[in-house]
């Protein structure tokens, strides 16, 4: 960046032919093109950056309207807040792990299929994407409730006697979250797998590795970037997730996002909500930053879709 500026400004004071005019033309053109991004930038500044900045500010305002750290103090001291953070991390980590365990084999399966069939399977992974989040969550609510499908079938097949409580608890929440987050893990992982040159595996086999061995020592390590990218996305999304835990948790699973909402809706306590929001944002940024040390984040944008 500084190269570009110094490059243009370094044409020394003994200005050559048309140098000034050419410089003007260059900056004008750059500005015009950059200006194409201005509607987007303005919108985001007005609706996101400034309000979030304000929220940041509000989090430091106490109940009496003066600067205070009471919102943060309350957060640190309160047991319920501690539980909320614990729950949030619990759900996020468990969901991520489950997604990896379930999603990786499926991605591997798809990567081994011939293109046409693989694309069909890809549709089953993408289908959830374009179904509404709410619809999917609702579907699980219906399936897992006491009189729901799962219990009906389980009982009629003789697998268990009394209806098991699958929903309105952590389990239901996890099931729903995993279902929603799976595509986010599968797509980058599948992308990474497809990009592996088959020659590597042939070489390993040629050198004497059994299929299992060549999988773990050659194939798996090469897929880690995609897998990590997907896992990161899932984890970060889970941290801030609202809808699914709210519906499937039955009030027993309270995540940070839900507390923020209730702080405003029920208590109109902007200070507390903002403080929580700031902490959530900082955790998200920290996670992304730590991950960027190990990953090239540019890959997420291209690899996912």
């Amino acid at each position, binding site marked *: 960046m500084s190269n570009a500026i110094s490059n243009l400004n370094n044409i020394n004071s003994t200005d050559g*032919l048309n140098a000034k005019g050419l410089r003007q033309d260059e900056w004008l053109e750059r500005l015009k093109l950059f200006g194409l991004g201005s509607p987007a930038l303005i919108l985001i500044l007005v609706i996101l950056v400034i309000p979030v900045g304000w929220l940041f500010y509000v989090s430091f305002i106490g109940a009496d309207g003066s600067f205070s750290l009471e919102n943060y103090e309350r957060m640190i001291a309160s047991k319920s807040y501690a539980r909320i953070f614990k729950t949030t991390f619990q759900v996020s980590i468990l969901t991520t792990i489950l997604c990896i365990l379930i999603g990786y084999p499926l991605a591997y399966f798809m990567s081994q299929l011939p293109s046409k069939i693989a694309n069909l399977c890809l549709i089953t992974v993408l289908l959830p994407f374009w179904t509404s989040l709410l619809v999917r969550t609702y579907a699980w609510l219906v399936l897992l409730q006491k009189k729901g499908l799962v219990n009906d079938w389980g009982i009629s097949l003789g697998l268990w006697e009394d209806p098991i409580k699958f929903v309105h608890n952590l389990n239901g929440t996890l099931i729903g979250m995993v279902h929603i987050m799976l595509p986010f893990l599968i797509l980058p992982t599948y992308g990474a797998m497809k990009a592996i040159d088959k020659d590597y595996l042939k070489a390993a086999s040629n050198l004497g590795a059994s299929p299992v061995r060549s999988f773990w020592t050659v194939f798996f390590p090469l897929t880690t970037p995609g897998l990590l990218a997907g896992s990161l996305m899932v984890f970060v999304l889970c941290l801030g997730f609202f809808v699914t835990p709210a519906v499937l948790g039955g009030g027993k699973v309270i995540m940070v996002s839900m507390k923020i909402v209730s702080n405003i809706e029920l208590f109109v306590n902007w200070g507390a909500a903002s403080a929580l929001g700031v902490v959530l944002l900082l955790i998200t940024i920290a996670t992304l930053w730590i991950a960027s040390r190990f990953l090239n984040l540019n890959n997420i944008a291209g690899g996912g879709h």
Partner: protein
Amino acid sequence: MTIKTDALPITVRHVTKTYGSVYALNDVSIDVRQGEFLTLLGPSGSGKTTLLMVLAGFTRPNQGSLLFGDEEVIRKPPHLRNLGMVFQNYALFPHMTVSGNVGYPLRLRKIPKNEIEERVAEALQLVQLDGLGDRQINQLSGGQKQRVALARSIVFEPRILLMDEPLSALDKKLRDQMQIELRRLHERLGMTTVYVTHDQREALTMSDRIAVLNNGKIMQLATPQDLYDFPQNKFVADFIGESTFLKVEKSRHSLIAGGVKLKTTQPIHNADKVALLIRPERIHILETKADKNMNVFDAVVSNLVYQGDSFLLYAVLADGTEIAIRGTIQNDNFVRLPKPGEPVRLGLEASDTLVIPDE
């Protein structure tokens, strides 16, 4: 479509383009004569493509002046410069047919439809693609695509034509054929043409004049013949044709190379370090006594290569330099040539003795 358009001369003055601390073009000035076919020749990174892009308006130099005829155009955007341009990978529009591509510049100029059809047909005929107007671009061969790109760039009768290594993606046979066709087209249409290539044979074949570039500077601007016979520096001599260089020591009154005091009828450049340029076909094996105007070198044969119609003899001088000598094979002379290990006398005419700056 008229033939022999009213071509424009191009005047480039003091054009400099830097990227950070690197000079892509370093105070370049050049005159392209009206209707001339000028080639910008050089290795990659020499600045030849940059200069072409400056002419086209896609690269904005830090400073400089550019005149098309009498008009200063350095600050004009590309779409107002009204020149034709053929890109290296043709840059044809895949979502249009051949006619669509060729007619595009005419549609931009709001020319009435029937006239467009006429002129597109004429242009296609000129590049020998008659009747292929309705083809899709992906149905064309490389050579055909090249011609469509050409037709598209001349259909609106520009007075200047720019070409960026247009033949580099073609195979050798097609390339040789196209070189002749391009040259013929140029003679027919007469527009000022600036052509970029890194292939010296191509440049020598097609150009009226060649500008050899290196590191953003013009090393020499001359006709192909002059560049070959009288290169003005080591870079040009090395880049065009084959050559061997002998170190030359300057003493007070004479130049000594390879242990021989040089006789030469060529002007000697006034540089500190100079070298003797020897072209393989200009140095001969002496079978009889040398005449007065020859520089004679004693050497030992190191290698003899048979090449069908010619031979390459490699001989080593006393100071260890190896010289290549090329000669034609006739009258069974090959068997009489000295073999590796045998001594040989080499003669270089004074008129062929070129001492040039060694840089």
